[in-house]
Structure formats: structure tokens, C-alpha cells
């Protein structure tokens, strides 16, 4: 057979040819598409989001970064290279017939990441990626109207991971040149497009911001010997042996350190370091009717020390296995249920993440659209969007909430603006949005929420988004309250959601019987009407203790919520999860002699 050289050359000709390469070849990671990471004890699902893979793919990298370089700001070669190119570009970058840039921004993301996964007890992959990604934005025009449009939104490049000033500057130089040329074309294109559109109340393209200097310490991976972790992945995923009906069982980890540099021509210089460690277990099985059942759990921390011990992780694994078995034998939900539903704090955190987070982002709508933002609450400013006992705020300055660690902590955002606590919803009324430096109507300045993945332009994202009740109910009493609501409506049972999966589908869902309060696990339920409207109209009570959901896509952020009780939601039978059972049984297991 011929050797398979693993590089495809993309046809430079731009002619279409069969696209053959980009699709994931791994059937085991396809199914989950929910970039959720969660920590609370009963819950979860970690998934590798595609865009993360993309970023990492750009950074397949391994040579050592010299350790001495970055310990102090003055000896930081990346910082020096960025400063020197910034000075030069500010002073001299100018084409004939094109205005000089009024704003230049450099962002370097230095990534060091170790990833590994094991399936059915055997290592499938392990990978260490290191690299430095550069993003350059050059703006021509002025704050009112500039070139930030299409190709003018920035250029991307890799810069060397060696601390070599010239080699780094060389790539910054070329990227800046490309960004400036793209900006001048983008401005013309934008002006041409605007001529076709009627804009009622023009909003500035870019907000002014004060220059800041904040050079924080760099972060480093707290260990580089991952052997024991790989063994743990293999040991955990080897537990599939106890259940012959598992379709998939795998365990994975991702340890990430990100150091970010940010400089702009206004004088802002920022450097910060963050670390994130996550280990997860995921399994799936099919019920006898073919319904696909999935469970997963992730544990994470800002330090390796915050990850669970081997024993704790194996215990979690056992619990995942156990719930998969229970689910397989659980009855399917009734054809239709309409009535009270109680979400555990853990499940509620998912609901808040899915339904509230996207709608409090102050994103500028497309050119020519007159809406205030792009979310469902774009015309809800100063209106009631939630019940009057609910407050929601975002606070990037906190790193724990009720003892739970949060991952959306930062000092400056990715546009160099100081992070601010923003009160978003007060007594149910929407009073603000999360804003970066791209203003929206009525919000001319950033509130420190311009955040970005390494490859993307900054946009509003939360840091730590917290939902709280002004009338917190004791958590222990919420099930009684659920039963009471059901009794009032003469329902034999209410529903309790312990954890949620992707697409707002419940993973662990229980009937709570009104007559004696006993709980029964059911499977195959999906919500008919869980949306922002139901949050406003059907939410009747909230608990006390928050659970935190952490997401790593597109930026790290956390969302906290107490348990939530709805007086009416519809749950129906899922049609989507039915699959055929395998045409033939799995291979029989050999002796476990070759286990690690």
C-alpha cells in the first residue's frame, strides 16, 4: 500500500473539488456537541467543541518555551517585539491615498495544552500543543465610522514560540501590513454597502477607552508528567467491562494554560495568564427499544490540585455507569405532560446558560439593521423579562461563589478594558447588556465584556453570570412545593430534572409522585416549550444554593443559578433518540490481563 502522507494541498486554483478532509473521523465524539463543563456533584457533560479543536489545531506545537524569558515584564520578548512593532506601525504605517490607521491592536495568545483520551480502557490519543497565535486589527477611518467590517475585522497568524525578537517581529510586521491593506478595502466596501441602506440612528463603530497598563504574571502548566493521569483515563474507561451493553465509554482530559498579550495604539499594554484543568468521563448505551442514552461528567479546576483524586474520579465513573443502567431500565415518559417542573440548581444553571446568556449580550446587529442587539431581548430594554424576584448580574472580578470556583475571572477584557460588575436584570427588568468596545444604541461605552477566543474578534461575552432570587426558598422545601403545585392541579406526579444535556434535553428526569413523594427515573423526555417566554411567565420560585456551569467556548465563563421551579412546562416523548440496536453483539471480552 502506498504511504498516506497526511497533508492535503489545497488547490490554489479555487476550483471546487471533493471536500474530503475536515470531518471528524471519530464516531465517538460526534454525538455530543454541547460545550458544557460542569462541576456540581450530580451532573454533567463535557464536550469538545469544534471551535476549540480548531484553535488547537492551529497550535500543534511542542518545543520548549524558554522559561527564563517571561518571568518579568522587562525580559518578556513577546512584549518587547509587540511594543517595537507597535511603535513602528504607529509612526510610519501609511499608504498613499489611504488614511493612516487611527487604531492598531495586537493580541498574542500563547497556548500550552495537553489533551488525552482513552476509550474502552485503552489510550486513544495524547497530544501536547504549544504555540503562539497572533491577531492583528488595524482600523482606518474614525471612531464614528471605521473599517471594522468583513476582512477588516482582523488578520490571523502564528508567531514563533522561540523568544526571538526579530522572528516574532517579522510575522507581526507582515500581519500588520495585511491587516492595514484589508482595512482600507473593508472601509470602502462598508461605505458602499451603507449607501444601499437606510440607517435611522447611526451608532459609533468603536467606543473610546482609557489606556491601561497591567502586566500580570504568566501561567504555567502545574505539571508536565501526565503518566498517572493517562493511567486514570484508562482505568476509568476500562469500567465498561462491567456492562456489556455499553455502546461507548471514554474518558478524556484537557489541561490548558493560556497567556494573553494585548497591546493597542492608544497605549494599553496588558498581559495575563490563566489555567484550566478538566477531566471527564462519558458513556452511552441503548435501551432495548433502541433509545440512545448518554451520560457524562466533568470535573475542573484552576489548578491540578483542584481536580478529584483517583478514588473520587472512579466513584464518579461508577455513578455514570450506574445511571446508564438505571436509564436503560427506566420507563419512557408519558406521551404528554403539562405541569410543574423542578430543576435542580445544576439543571437550572444549564437553562440559564442556554436561555439567558445569549440574550444579554450587547452585540451590534448587522449593518443597516435598526435593532439594538441581536438577541431575543433586543427590544426588551427596561422591560420585564423575568419574574420580579429574579436578579441577574455578571461579575468578572469574583473567583468563587458560595465556595464554588468560577472560571470567568479576569481583570482586563480582551480589548484592554477593565472588567466591571454589570447588573443586567433587576427585579425581573432588563436594565443593561454586556458591552465591549463596539457600541450599541444607548450604550456608547464598553463595560469590560469584550472577550475573544484566540482566533476571533472580541465580542460581548459573560465572565461570571449569576442568577439570584430576592426571595430564596430553602432548597430542602422545593420538592414539597412541587408536590403541592401538582396536588392543586390533581396531577399524579410532577417532574424533577436533575441534569440537562445538550439542546436543553433532560438527561436525568424523575417523576415525583404526589401521593408519597417517591421518585421514579424516566427516559426519553424533551421539553415542548422551555424558552425565554416560559422563564418570564412560568417561573414561580428559586432555591438558595447555586450550582455553577462552566463553559470554555468561545471563552471561559461560568453561569450560576439556584434551583428553579416552574408551575407549567410541557414535556413530551422524544422521537429523535430512537436508533436501531446494533446488528450484532459486541466482541466478547478477553481476560483483563492486558489492563494497565
Amino acid at each position, binding site marked *: 500500500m*502506498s*504511504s*498516506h*502522507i*497526511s*497533508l*492535503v*494541498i*489545497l*488547490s*490554489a*486554483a*479555487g476550483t*471546487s*473539488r*471533493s471536500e*474530503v*478532509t475536515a470531518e471528524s*473521523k471519530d*464516531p465517538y465524539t460526534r454525538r455530543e456537541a454541547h460545550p458544557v463543563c460542569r462541576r456540581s456533584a450530580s451532573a454533567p457533560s463535557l464536550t469538545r467543541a469544534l471551535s476549540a479543536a480548531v484553535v488547537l*489545531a*492551529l*497550535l*500543534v*506545537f*511542542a518545543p520548549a518555551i524558554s522559561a527564563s524569558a517571561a518571568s518579568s515584564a522587562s525580559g518578556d*520578548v513577546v512584549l518587547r517585539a509587540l511594543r*517595537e512593532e507597535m511603535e513602528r506601525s504607529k509612526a510610519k*504605517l501609511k*499608504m498613499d491615498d489611504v488614511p493612516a490607521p487611527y487604531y492598531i491592536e495586537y493580541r498574542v495568545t500563547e497556548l500550552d495544552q495537553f489533551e*488525552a*483520551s482513552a476509550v474502552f*480502557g485503552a*489510550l486513544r*490519543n495524547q*497530544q501536547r500543543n504549544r504555540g503562539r497565535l497572533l491577531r492583528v486589527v488595524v482600523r482606518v477611518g474614525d471612531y464614528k465610522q471605521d473599517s471594522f467590517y468583513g476582512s477588516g475585522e482582523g*488578520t*490571523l*497568524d*502564528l508567531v*514563533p*514560540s*522561540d523568544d*526571538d*525578537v*526579530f*522572528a*516574532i*517581529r*517579522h*510575522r507581526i*510586521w507582515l*500581519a500588520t*501590513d495585511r491587516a492595514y491593506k484589508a482595512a482600507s478595502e473593508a472601509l470602502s466596501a462598508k461605505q458602499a454597502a451603507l449607501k444601499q441602506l437606510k440607517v435611522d440612528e447611526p451608532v459609533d463603530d468603536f467606543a473610546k477607552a482609557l489606556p491601561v497598563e497591567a502586566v500580570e504574571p504568566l501561567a504555567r502548566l502545574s505539571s508536565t508528567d501526565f503518566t498517572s493521569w493517562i493511567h486514570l483515563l484508562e482505568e476509568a474507561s476500562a469500567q465498561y467491562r462491567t456492562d456489556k451493553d455499553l455502546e461507548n465509554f471514554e474518558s478524556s482530559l484537557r489541561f490548558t494554560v493560556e497567556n494573553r498579550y494585548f497591546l493597542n495604539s492608544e497605549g494599553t499594554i496588558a498581559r495575563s495568564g490563566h489555567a484550566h484543568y478538566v477531566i471527564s468521563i462519558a458513556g452511552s448505551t441503548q435501551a432495548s427499544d433502541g433509545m440512545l442514552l448518554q451520560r457524562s461528567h466533568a470535573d475542573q479546576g484552576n489548578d491540578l490540585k483542584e481536580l478529584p483524586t483517583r478514588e473520587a474520579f472512579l466513584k464518579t465513573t461508577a455513578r455514570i455507569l450506574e445511571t446508564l443502567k438505571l436509564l436503560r431500565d427506566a420507563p419512557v415518559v408519558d406521551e404528554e405532560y403539562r405541569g410543574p417542573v423542578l430543576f435542580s440548581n445544576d439543571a437550572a444553571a444549564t437553562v440559564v446558560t442556554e436561555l439567558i446568556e445569549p440574550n444579554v449580550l450587547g452585540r451590534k446587529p448587522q449593518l443597516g439593521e435598526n435593532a439594538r442587539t441581536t438577541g431575543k431581548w433586543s427590544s426588551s430594554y427596561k422591560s420585564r423579562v423575568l419574574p420580579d424576584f429574579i436578579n441577574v448580574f455578571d461579575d468578572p472580578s469574583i473567583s468563587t461563589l458560595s465556595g464554588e470556583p468560577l472560571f470567568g475571572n479576569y481583570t482586563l477584557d480582551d480589548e484592554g478594558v477593565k472588567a466591571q460588575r454589570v447588573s443586567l436584570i433587576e427585579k425581573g427588568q432588563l436594565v443593561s447588556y454586556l458591552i465591549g468596545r463596539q457600541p450599541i444604541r444607548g450604550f456608547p461605552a464598553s463595560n469590560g465584556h469584550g472577550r475573544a477566543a484566540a482566533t476571533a474578534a472580541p465580542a460581548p461575552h459573560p465572565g461570571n453570570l449569576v442568577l439570584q432570587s430576592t426571595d430564596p426558598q430553602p432548597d430542602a422545601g422545593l420538592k414539597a412545593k412541587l408536590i403541592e403545585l401538582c396536588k392543586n392541579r390533581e396531577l399524579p406526579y410532577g417532574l424533577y430534572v436533575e441534569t440537562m444535556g445538550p439542546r436543553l434535553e433532560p438527561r436525568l428526569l424523575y417523576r415525583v409522585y404526589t401521593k408519597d413523594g417517591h421518585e421514579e427515573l424516566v427516559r426519553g423526555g424533551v421539553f415542548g416549550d422551555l424558552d425565554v417566554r416560559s422563564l418570564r411567565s412560568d417561573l414561580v420560585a428559586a432555591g438558595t444554593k447555586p450550582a455553577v456551569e462552566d463553559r470554555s467556548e468561545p471563552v471561559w465563563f461560568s453561569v450560576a443559578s439556584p434551583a428553579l421551579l416552574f408551575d407549567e412546562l410541557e414535556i413530551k416523548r422524544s422521537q429523535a433518540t430512537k436508533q436501531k440496536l*446494533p*446488528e*450484532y453483539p459486541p*466482541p466478547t471480552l*478477553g481476560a483483563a490481563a*492486558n489492563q494497565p
Partner: protein
Amino acid sequence: MAPKGAAFFVSPAPVHSRFRMNYIKAVFLPALLVLVALLGQIALLHAQKSPAATDDVLLATMEKELHRGQAELARQDPAPYFTSYNVTDGESLFIIGAQGGILSSSRARHRSADVSMRIGAPALDNTHDQERFSGITSGQLPQRDDPDAIARVLWHLTYEQYRKARQAYTNVKTKTAVRAKDEDDSPDFSQEKPSTYLEKTSPAAFPEQTAWEELARRYSASFRQFPEIEESMVFLTAVRSHSYLVSTEGTKIVTADAVFRLVIQAETRADDGMQLMRVETFQSSDPTKFPAEAEVATKVKKMASDLSALRAAPLAEPYSGPALLSGRAAAVFFHEVLGHRVEGQRQRGRDEGQTFTKKVNEKILPEFLSVADDPTLRTLAGTELSGFYRYDDEGVPAARVEVVQDGILKNFLMGRLPVKNFTNSNGHGRAQAGLMPVGRQGNLIVTSSKTIPDAQLRSRFIEEIKKQGKPYGLYFEDIQGGFTLTTRDLPQAFQVLPVMVWRVFADGRPDELVRGVDIVGTPLTVLTQIAATGDTTSVFNGICGAESGSVPVSAAAPAMLFPDMEVQKRKYGDARPPILPPPPGAMDDKGGAR
């Protein structure tokens, strides 16, 4: 079958950018992504145990699970009539350097599996026509030799592939019932004798990552002394793998491969915005045979001086007249113009242009030219050939195919997809991991019985220019690659991408370098016009892309004289050269901070 508008191309570099200098956005990042996607779930560090050919857990597990699946699925209706497992188990090292710094460096271990399955009968199965891609499902296997885990993943891939094939077979039956009969009603799968081959090789030496990083630093730093070169990159690639294939027909093959490649690429721009590029490639199956540093330094210097000369060179004008192609240029020309059109599957299918389908036993070249594709050749003219392999990706032994004998078309490059009058594979069914093999080139070799010494060929060329009353002819010294279109709904065109083209004047003035030349034309007319060839064979090693992915290929030919070649002006961007000069400090001991 080729998708609509399929283009095929060959390039010497792992990264090929012609129309945009902005490699990072246009090519480089996608290429890296693709690399990563292909390596899939990569691993690095130590390969625990180098993959051995025989009595290994992987091979035993593959066989056992294949046969278990076959027995189990035989009870299904419809049952598959063919199943195979291909596994590529290898490691790779990929390093990119620029200006003395490492942009990317990864060491990976990969073990990827392709499960192929056919339902129906060889005459008509699930892979018919547009459903061809239903023949294969891919995934990543565990790297650790755990038979239970490997078997489970294979099981999963197998029943998923069964479902895919079954659905496709239903579609095929429906479509066949309602559509007009195909002109070529050849079967979908050829009958071949099973092969057994277990290659026992001690694995090729594998370079140390840190040592190669240092090489990438040094080689890429040598461009620091040429500030007029805008972008330059050095790519170092090492791949060593074992390929396993077992099928329900009884084929069982293990082969070992290793390839080590150094590609140096440099680009600049003329003042009018035209992008100019030079690429140098060194390739070997033995990393210790890499060129000495002095040799690399000389090449770098030559690339820099070529680019400086190209920057200053006048633009080519549209031209029709005598042209002389160097051996390398002629080799790429044949790969594009002839090679892709004699791939078997292009002779059937409603979308194919079928240039040569009905020309078998007809004259398509001057009688002094013959063309063979011979993947069994390891070296030619002292050069290692990229297109060498022992068995193709369908497990058929590689074989020399006489495509054109004395100008007469004789044969096509066949995988296991038959075409009218060509019922069997000749060992050219090739694909990159994860894709369905089709007939592809290996080592395409053009030979001539009418050679004249290379020096005399030039005089012949000048005579021809004078005879036609032209002021000059064009000499194509080097070519960076090309592409071709073979489908019906697009022009049957080809282009090769010349980089070093000279005007050779009738009046004896010194040759003049020109830039921005593209050869254009239609295949049938151009080929018949070749007037004479030189006496030295040159080899072009490259990577060829088509519907079954990227495969390494070689093309070899002597220099050739074309009495009438048509060239056009190359389209080019209008982006100016960089506004600011490069940053200072290029020669301060690599920046001073290390």
C-alpha cells in the same frame, strides 16, 4: 466518480499557494487543520513499541473481528459480499520554521482505521456511481495494543458502515430502476486474487524532534539575509507507518513506509503586486540522507537570487509559438495533461469528459513517445521516487502499466472499479486514509526513442523559432505544479504553473527571464505536436490531489520541444509589497534575546 468540477493538481510543496501570498489565511492554516484532522486523534511522545509486521495484536485483532463481523452480518438481509479493514499505524513529525523561529512543531502517533464494505453483488453494489463514498467508514483506533478495545471500536465502525452501505444500496437499486442504462455498464467491483504479504522491516530511523527543530531554525534563519523576500517557511515532515489490510476475500498485507521531506518555500511580490514563489524540495526514505547544510544554503541563495531576478523581470505577453520544456516541466505537463485522463474511473460516469475513453489503440502521441506508470520503481536516474509502493490501497500488487506505447494508447490506470474492456485492477487503486480508492498515478514515466542531446535540443529550438519567424521562444525551466479539469461541464483545460520561464531570442541575445506565464490549451492537440526530446530524464516528486485525496506521486520525462505552445498572462493580485521595510535586527545574532 469525480464530483462536478473536479480539479487535479500536483505540487512539490506541502503548502501550495499561488493566487494569494497570504498563506496563513488561505492555505497554511487550512493545511495545518487538514493535517491535524487527518492525523486525527494525535498522540506524541514515545511510541511504545514500534509496530511490527507479524504476530502483532493489531493484525490478529483486525482479522478476528473482520471474520466475526462477516459471519454475523451474513445473517442480515442484505448481507455484505465484501468487507475489508485498512489500518494505518504510524508516527509523524511536522515542523514549520520561519525567520529562525519555530511556528509549529508536533510529534504524533496515529492509528486510523477504514472499514470498507460492499452490499449487493460485484455487478451492482452500494458504491455504484454517486454512492461511491458509501463504501467506507473511518475512525481512530486505540493506540495501546488492547485487543478488547480495538475489537470494540472496529465492531462499532463495522455496523455503522453496514448501515451506510445498506442505505446506499437501496438508493442505488431505486436509481438504477428509474434511470437510463449507463453507457458503460461495467461492474462496480473487479474480481481479484487475494494477496498475502507481510513486510518485516526494522523501522526507519526517526529523527529527534529537538534536532529537527534546530534544523528548521537554522534553515529558516538563512532567509534573514534576504530582506527582499517577503515570506519564507521551512517545512520538515517525517512520517513512518505500517499499513495493514485484511479483507474477507483473504487478502492480508502489512507494508512499511517511511518518508522524510524538507520543503523550503519563499515568496515575494513584484511592484505591480504579482506574487512570485520558489519552492525547493528534498525527499528521502532515509532521514540520514538529507542534504548537507551547505547544499541547503546554496539552494536558499539560489531561491533568493531567482526571486530577485523575477521581481525585476518583465511581464510575459500572450504568446503562441515554439516552447522548450525542461524535463521537470515536461513531467508535470504529462502528469496533468495525460496522466489524469488515463485514470480508469474517468472513462465512465456521466460527468466525465472521457477524453481518451474511445481512443484505445489509437495514436495520441508522436510515435517516438511512450508512457508507463510504474509504482514498483524505487528510484530513477538516481532519484528516489515518491510514487513507489508495493500494494495499492485495495491490496492489489503494484504493477507497471504501459499506458502509451509508441504513441498508441494501450491501457488505463485501474483500481478495482472496472471500465468497459478493462475488467481488472492493475494495482493503481489509491487513496489517502479515509477515502475510497480510485485509479491514480504512481510513477508516471515518459520515454522517448527520438532523443537528441540536451545541448542540441536548444539549437533545434532556436531553429524552430527562426523557421516560424518569431522573435523569441519560451524556455520553461521550472514549474511549481499544475491542475487539470476533466469533467464535461467545464472546459477540458489544464494549466501548469511555471515559475522560471525564459525568452530565448532568435537573434542570439542573452535569454531573458519573464514572469507571469501560464501554459494553456486542450490536451489532445498539444500532445500530438511534440517535435523532439532531450536525452536526460528528470524527476518531479510531488503530492497529487484528486477525489481520493492526496497521494505521493512522481513524474519523469526528458526535456521536450513543442513547436506551438500557447501561453497566457497569469492573473495576479494587486496588493502592493509591504509598506514598511522588514523590522531591524535580522543579523543581530538571531535577535539578540536568546
